[in-house]
């Protein structure tokens, strides 16, 4: 039987339950503009009127709430949250009784969630509205995560908080376009929609790859025509955006998905004449933190998300020590997290009472061996390449010590990359440099075959 025969027929009434004539008009404008891309897909917000009220209420509560906790203390909401998890979530229920000390709670990993997501969905989560997000992660094994349209819509609460930190209050509304989600991939899910909590302003998810446009020159014309207030995307998509002769400028760029190196960030800020926010975000927990140079790292965005830094055995490390980021809490009521080990590494320091993630690296740390036989943490490579505006790169060390650097983007040349690496690894360090058009999917930035490269943090 043709599998399509079983498919649910989805209409605009399902995609945009609260759509008004104004919303319909902006959708028509986005879809039918003479320079519009070829939208490959259809999607929507799925928010009912009740949902919209709920998202607005959440935003109000979140904007009033304090973020963080005092050094050596736990946030006040934590106890109740854990108790609820032990009652309502099948996976945590099997732990038995709530331990008297937080640090005695077992940790969980991506593998636990991947094993059976159903065990992490609370008994109270409504099933009729359940949706899934798929994430490939660093291992290439896809993970299915439970979510809800209200959760997806609530991301904006944290984007607004992040933007506010840089002095930006969103001011677009009805008849205007709020955001363009910019992609630059061979294949990309693309569509137009509206954001009900912003008076049905437009939302476009598009792909800069020329195959998604009738004429590549349409790209700049379309961006200028829709004049979105914010662009979001990854550094690769933004690097491509730099090549377009745009006349208009967004008020901010929000970068997610991969490391945004400082040089690239500066280039984007200079080019677009606006703040470029580096967001630490993941499907499992949504937007977690935003980079703020003045704060010395990534400052937290969620008021009900507790962050610890753990060593390999799951023990919490003291402030300032580097380890794996673990999350407890979150706003996804379909996937409450208890000590979820993210696979990302950072240290947690305090600016007064504000916790800050310092030297955040989205991948397990790898040590490289230099010519003198010393171990170098991969963070040192990141620092060494900071001056170079390369959108994305990977570094691999072979067992005999040779290095292979693969990079994409036209903004730098081989010498610019070679010099800082030679300074770091020593003169005469064998180094292969390979420029690639693009990296497919998520990539593992640092890898090594050298014995002992993965031990220690």
């Amino acid at each position, binding site marked *: 039987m043709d599998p399509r025969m079983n498919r*649910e027929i*989805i209409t605009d009434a399902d995609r945009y339950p609260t759509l008004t004539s104004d919303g319909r008009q902006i959708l028509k404008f986005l879809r039918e503009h003479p320079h519009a891309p070829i939208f490959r*897909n*259809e*999607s*929507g917000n*799925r928010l009912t009127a009740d949902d919209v009220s709920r998202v607005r209420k959440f935003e109000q509560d979140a904007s009033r709430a304090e973020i963080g906790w005092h050094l050596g203390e736990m946030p006040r909401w934590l106890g109740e949250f854990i108790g609820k998890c*032990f009652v309502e979530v*099948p996976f945590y*229920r*099997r*732990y*038995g*009784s*709530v*331990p*008297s000390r937080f*640090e*005695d709670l*077992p940790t*969980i990993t991506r593998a*636990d969630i991947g094993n*059976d*997501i*159903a*065990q992490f*969905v609370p*008994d109270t989560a409504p*099933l009729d509205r*359940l*949706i*899934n*997000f*798929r*994430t490939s992660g660093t291992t290439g094994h896809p993970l299915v995560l*439970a*979510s809800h*349209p209200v959760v*997806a*819509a609530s*991301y*904006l609460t944290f*984007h607004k908080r992040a933007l506010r930190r840089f002095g930006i209050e969103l001011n677009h509304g009805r008849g205007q376009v*709020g955001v363009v*989600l910019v992609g630059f991939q061979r294949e990309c*899910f693309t569509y137009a929609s509206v*954001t009900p909590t912003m008076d049905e302003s437009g*939302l476009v998810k598009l792909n800069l790859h020329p195959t998604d446009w009738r004429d590549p020159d349409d790209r700049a014309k379309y961006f200028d025509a829709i004049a979105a207030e914010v662009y*979001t995307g990854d550094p690769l998509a933004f690097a491509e955006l730099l090549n377009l002769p745009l006349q208009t400028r967004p008020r901010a760029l*929000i970068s*997610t*998905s991969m490391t945004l190196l400082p040089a690239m960030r500066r280039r984007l800020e200079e080019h677009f004449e606006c703040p470029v926010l580096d*967001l630490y*975000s*993941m*499907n499992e927990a949504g*937007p977690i933190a935003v980079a703020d140079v003045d704060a010395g790292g990534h400052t937290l965005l969620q008021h009900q998300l507790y962050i610890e830094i753990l060593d390999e*055995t*799951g*023990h919490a490390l003291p402030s300032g020590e580097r380890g794996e980021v673990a999350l407890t809490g979150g706003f996804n009521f379909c996937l409450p997290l208890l000590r979820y080990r993210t696979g990302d590494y950072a240290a947690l320091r305090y600016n007064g009472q504000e916790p800050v993630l310092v030297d955040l690296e989205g991948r397990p740390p790898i040590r490289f061996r230099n010519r003198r036989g010393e171990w170098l943490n991969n963070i040192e490579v990141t620092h060494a390449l900071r001056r170079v505006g390369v959108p994305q790169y990977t570094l691999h060390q072979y067992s005999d010590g040779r290095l292979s650097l693969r990079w994409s983007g036209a903004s730098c040349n081989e010498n610019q990359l070679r010099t800082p690496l030679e300074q770091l690894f020593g003169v005469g360090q064998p180094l292969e440099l390979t420029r690639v058009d693009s990296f497919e999917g998520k990539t593992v930035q640092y890898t090594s075959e050298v014995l002992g490269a993965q031990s220690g943090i």
Partner: protein
Amino acid sequence: MEQEGPILESLTRRLAETPEEFLFEPRIGVSGHVHVAAVAGDLAKALNVPLKAGELVRFAGNDARQDRNRLAITLLFCWILFDEWFRQANCGHDAVLKLLDSESKELASQIAARKFVTDPDRREEMARVTLARLGFRPAGESLAQAQDRLTTLNSTERARVMRAARVAEERARQIREALKKKAAEESADKWTRE
């Protein structure tokens, strides 16, 4: 259950007054506090039925997520059995080991350990199970009465647990089904993608 044991209330009261040390987190790997194997070993010596090293391994645990409730229940059994009455009772080696191990495992799949302290029915169940597995019945009860009461407590709880398990399995199936149907990129807007 042929032999008469202590009065039931002495055991349920003992459970209700479990000292904190027996409620501390079982040590599993590098986390937790109480080395349950050491407590079980001390208990066995006190009962004059020493356990060999190989028999104590099972009380170490490997994975806190799987083992912490089981070992927390083992600790509660230990607390009951440290009662003076049991020290004088000539408990059998195999029966003690089975109670600390298999019975803890069985109960752990059904109930969170703390309930055996805080819930009167569960306290009674644990006290009765302890006596029954060691061949005793509460003082003042006939064999039939003791068996009947234990069965009632057990079967009521078991029925509840089985009902809950069936409901949970059905819900898990529905969740997997619902998630298969709706990929979020086709059904919900986020301003950023990870």
